[in-house]
């Protein structure tokens, strides 16, 4: 069944959108991980980011806005032989789906969450998102956003996420490497990918990011140091660090279920009557 990861010609994205680069990086990364398309599931919610799965030839669960993470967690638990990625937006993941993300960090399933973070609601035409900057003007927030932006990387570090990284859609190679690393990592990986939205975010453009992003020099940051990671996570403004910010090995959600030690859940047979009789016997 090997045909590699093929990208569709047609998409519903705007020309110049950062999503194209992310899609390319995803396909490259999956290829680099030597995965078969039919062993990969892309799970998404609703939004421009969440359309990505439709444009690659894998298994797709394109569910509800904000609800990709619980679906992905369950898919991985049912069939841990599959590689499960979530492709989601900043609204999808940090807004509507915020609670699921919080608790996914706690569970630590072996899934990769790619947040296409364009700091705006793209599909619904440009409202503020949880990561929009304070003061960011939109049609709905015509006097500027009054809430402080959520810092996903700091949040993930505070939640002791297993792998926390920041990527940039303007650097496909670096992003592909980061995604490959996240996919290979055992446990939950969150990659907050800064993605210019050419239609609705005229502030955080390619140029804006290019002036600011940098990869910390080899050896200057220890991702296993949580306080250091937190400090780096707070670095924002003139300088925006990319790459792995935090990493910790933790028990993986689906590895802790006795039911899964003998193989995948989906491969288990229906129970025999002997077992059922035994369960019933406890009620006598």
């Amino acid at each position, binding site marked *: 069944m090997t045909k590699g990861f093929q990208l569709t010609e047609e998409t519903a994205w705007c020309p110049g959108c950062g999503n194209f680069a992310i899609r390319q990086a995803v396909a490259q990364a999956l290829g680099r991980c030597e995965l078969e398309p039919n062993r990969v599931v892309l799970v998404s919610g*609703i939004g421009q980011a969440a359309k990505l799965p439709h444009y690659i030839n894998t298994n797709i669960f394109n569910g509800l806005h904000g609800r990709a993470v*619980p679906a992905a967690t369950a898919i991985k638990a049912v069939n841990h032989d599959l590689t499960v990625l979530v492709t989601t937006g900043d609204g999808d993941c940090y807004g509507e789906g915020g609670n699921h993300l919080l608790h996914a960090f706690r569970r630590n399933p072996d899934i990769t969450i790619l947040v296409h973070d364009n700091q705006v609601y793209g599909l619904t035409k440009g409202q503020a998102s949880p990561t929009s900057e304070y003061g960011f003007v939109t049609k709905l927030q015509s006097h500027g956003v009054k809430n402080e932006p959520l810092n996903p990387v700091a949040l993930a570090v505070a939640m002791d996420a297993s792998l926390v990284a920041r990527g940039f859609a303007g650097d496909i190679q670096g992003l592909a490497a980061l995604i490959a690393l996240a996919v290979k990592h055992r446990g939950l990986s969150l990659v907050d990918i800064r993605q210019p939205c050419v239609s609705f975010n005229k502030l955080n453009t390619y140029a804006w990011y290019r002036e600011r992003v940098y990869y910390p020099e080899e050896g200057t940051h220890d991702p296993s140091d949580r306080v250091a990671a937190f400090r780096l996570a707070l670095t924002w403004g003139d300088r925006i660090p990319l790459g792995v910010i935090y990493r910790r090995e933790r028990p993986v959600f689906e590895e802790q279920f006795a039911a899964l030690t003998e193989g995948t859940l989906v491969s288990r047979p229906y129970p025999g009557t002997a077992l059922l009789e035994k369960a019933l016997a406890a009620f*006598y």
Partner: protein
Amino acid sequence: MLYELNLKLGGEAGQGLQALGLLLGRLYARAGCHVFANQDNESRIRGGHNSYQLRVASRPVYTMGEAIDLLVDLDGESRRIHAPELVPGGLVLVDSASGGPREVALPLTEIARAAGGREIHRNSVAAGAVAALTGQDRDTLFPLIDETFAADPAARAINSACARAGYRAALETGKSLPFALPSRPAGRPYLNGHEALSLGCLAAGCKFMAAYPMSPSTLIITYLSGQADAFGLVVEQAEDEVAAINMALGASYAGVRALTATSGGGFALMVEGLSLAGMLELPVVVVIAQRPGPATGLPTRTEQGDLLFAIGAGHGEFPRFVLAPATAAEAFAAAPRAFDLAERFQVPVIILTDQHLAESYLTPEPFDFSRVNVTDYRLKQAASPYHRYDPGPDGVSPLAVPGTVDAVVVDSDEHDARGHIIEDAATRNAMVAKRLARIPAMRAMVSPPLRQGPPEAEDVLLGWGSGWGALCEAGEKLAAAGRPVEVWGLQEVWPLNPEHFAPLSGRRVTVVESNATGQMARLLSGWAAVRVARGINRYDGRPLSAAYIIRHFEGGETA
């Protein structure tokens, strides 16, 4: 000689009423009796006033009795609160060295202490005393105590000693209830509606459950989680109900039978997910354990207030089944039935239970697991290319497991046969038609209502779900009083098959339900052209009883 025994345990939350009730229920079940037990609890952990009522009989019983033969007073308040319920000659077991004429005075706590226990162990003293007072055999009681505390030898020793002391002390009072043991052999389980339902889920091959705790549904996840290792399940407490149903849908997509359970308020949060199941055509089973609403309502009490909500829940149009099992035995059967229907038609199936069904115990005939139908509808041999939404017979598409075919693509947007987003009118029309094409076949699958009593009686008492037991008993009593009625009980409440209701035409139909607005009455008149003469409704959070039904039936009261 009584042909049945009605026992009530009264006390505060936290005093161990449930453990004592469970022990006694199993005792009588082992002795070969039929038992029905239900509870009346406040929404608190300690204090207040709760009760646990057991009806022990020589034939199957499905409702609480109306008068108490023996009351066990653990809080010093119960004798006052429940005095009016005692039969003439009924006894009250009090934790005291002395008592009145109707009282069996035993210093339970002192006896427990003397036997090496603490105050909490007086429950075992009481168990022993009740067993003795109701003529139960030591050889049934003592092994049961030992087994109950098998996991903890020290606890076993103390509780055993306490039970023996209680047994002895009660015999010494010389008091007793003339209760005749039935001659039936022992051997029925003692369990409640949600335990039965959970066993049914296991039997159905359910492999995944996610839920968020909510009374009165929590027992299901608690029980299944305890069985997870033995049966190979993944059971997860979700962060909220929205997560729970989306997890269940993810699991279903990945290829296993998936369940979630909640009460009405939690289900309200699952409604978007239900619509997603409708769009993705994913099988999933959702239990709604009803309690009185709106909002938080009365969390520990019962109601049948979510019928129309369950049937109409979800934006957009998609088919579903709604089941409402009548008794614990039926709840056991409803679970594999629900999983089967869900997978056969790739639709969500809702099981409506309620606190009364969930927490009432009874002693059904042992379940026959070999008769449970578990058909695997998943695709074994997939065509290539596989298209998730290719229409099949009755609008049902081939259901492949991801990993076994090129790609399984499901999409909450309107989509084409491959599962990809579309915008055009023709594909939309075809997909709507395909999804709804399942309805006729689904309707044909629905079981007719349960019926009991003379089919020629002019009067019909019709109820649904857990109302069945009280209805049957009301029917029998009315017949015995020379007022024949036929009793109907719906267990598969959606979709409705109008043909099932033809026998009602020209008869006087009284719809009995635990809600205020008469939801089943409305459903039947709207969807099955049933002419409903009137409704008997109860909405105070307490279960329907034969007495309640008869009072309103005869008095013509419409509560």
